[in-house]
């Protein structure tokens, strides 16, 4: 099955294939990382449920758009194999999708509207998920919220794996090619659309962050009580931010499904979508979009190159290279958090002194235990009014 996927994607070969692949992944992850930056970097909400929202996007394509496509094609008079029961839904998936693709080849409008429909539905469902998350998020402590969200990602994966009506259970389900009308390579056009969506998202986020609302968000991050005292609805703003960012985060799930033409629950692991996106955010520096882009580009380039040269590493190592990748993820996260607490590109023009690591390990206790476990960067990162008055 993997060979089939590989051959369908690898129409462009060699170096340009790698470039398309990196561009596609950059487009996918930059949307997630920007949404995370919007939530954590600017509003201070630690959303560890990115995988939940992405999985919702994927399930929208496999569970809703696919059925709609079957129904529309059958209305147009093309005979499809039965797909009502779980068995038929799975085992006729491939042949049905081939028939749908043949029809979509001559109907570009239908393909584009299917894509737009799935993105719209995914955004609505993502916003619903964001609202569901925000209900406990308002009442709970940040650490409790993290626990809940991480388990929620696992739970949604379990549902996807065991209910064949959603995404074909463990076997996965095939997705029609909405770009069938395009004669060239499918990967390129998917990458272009993803990057274009990323660009639109970037401009939306940029406008929002430069507006009074964005300033209010940063004010809430810096000091919640002050914002409450000047009559701002902190709870409502947090809910709006979560809903909006969740809606945006659902889009990469849709685009992943169309890029692979295939949906299975294992594509949406929480280690993949949550942890790597967080590494990008923390590596680049939370709070500014430049840092997010830099972190995303570095991490994606590294990962794709490692995967492309997997055959080389597998010859010299006795273990799969993916574990080395995980070690890299863990070590990078910790190193960045210790040596560059504000990321590669810090949020404002602040001088970050070098950290003497050996001294920190050996040093006896010199900690202000009043603030240590509670507040982030107490006294160090401040909300500078000077910057925003201009």
């Amino acid at each position, binding site marked *: 099955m993997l060979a089939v996927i590989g051959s369908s994607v690898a129409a462009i070969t060699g170096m340009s294939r790698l470039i398309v692949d990196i561009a596609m992944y950059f487009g996918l992850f930059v949307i997630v990382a920007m949404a995370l930056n919007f939530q954590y970097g600017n509003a201070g909400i630690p959303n560890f449920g990115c995988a939940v929202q992405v999985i919702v996007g994927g399930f929208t394509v496999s569970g809703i758009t696919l059925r709609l496509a079957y129904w529309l094609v059958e209305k147009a008079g093309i005979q499809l194999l039965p797909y009502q029961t779980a068995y038929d839904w799975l085992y006729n998936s491939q042949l049905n999708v081939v028939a749908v693709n043949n029809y979509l080849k001559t109907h570009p409008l239908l393909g584009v509207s299917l894509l737009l429909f799935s993105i719209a539905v995914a955004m609505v469902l993502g916003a619903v998920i964001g609202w569901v998350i925000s209900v406990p998020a308002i009442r709970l402590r940040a650490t409790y919220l993290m626990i809940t969200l991480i388990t929620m990602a696992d739970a949604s994966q379990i549902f996807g794996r065991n209910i064949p009506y959603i995404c074909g259970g463990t076997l996965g389900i095939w997705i029609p090619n909405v770009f069938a009308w395009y004669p*060239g390579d499918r990967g390129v056009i998917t990458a272009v659309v993803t990057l274009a969506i990323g660009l639109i998202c970037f401009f939306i986020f940029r406008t929002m962050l430069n507006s009074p609302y964005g300033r209010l968000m940063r004010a809430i991050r810096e000091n919640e009580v002050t914002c409450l005292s000047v009559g701002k609805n902190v709870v409502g703003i947090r809910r709006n931010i979560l809903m909006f960012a969740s809606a945006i985060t659902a889009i990469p799930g849709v685009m992943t499904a169309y890029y692979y033409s295939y949906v299975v629950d294992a594509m949406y692991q929480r280690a993949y979508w949550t942890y790597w996106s967080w590494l990008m955010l923390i590596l680049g520096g939370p709070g500014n979009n430049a840092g997010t882009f830099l972190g995303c580009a570095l991490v994606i380039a590294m990962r794709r190159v490692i995967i492309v040269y997997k055959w080389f590493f597998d010859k010299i190592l006795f273990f799969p290279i993916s574990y080395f990748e995980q070690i890299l993820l863990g070590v990078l996260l910790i190193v960045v958090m210790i040596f560059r607490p504000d990321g590669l590109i810090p949020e404002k023009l602040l001088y970050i002194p070098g950290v003497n690591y050996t001294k920190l390990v050996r040093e006896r206790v010199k900690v202000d235990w009043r603030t240590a476990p509670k507040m982030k960067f107490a006294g160090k990162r401040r909300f500078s009014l000077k910057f925003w008055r201009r």
Partner: protein
Amino acid sequence: MVLFWVMVAIWVFMPAFIVYEEIKERRALAEIEKAEASEE
């Protein structure tokens, strides 16, 4: 192949635009700080 280059263009444009904005912002910030320092 045209689309391939369109993709590369978008891909390059996004970071370039951000870097441009970032530099502009920082320059403005530095100017404000300089002006304030001279006022005092």
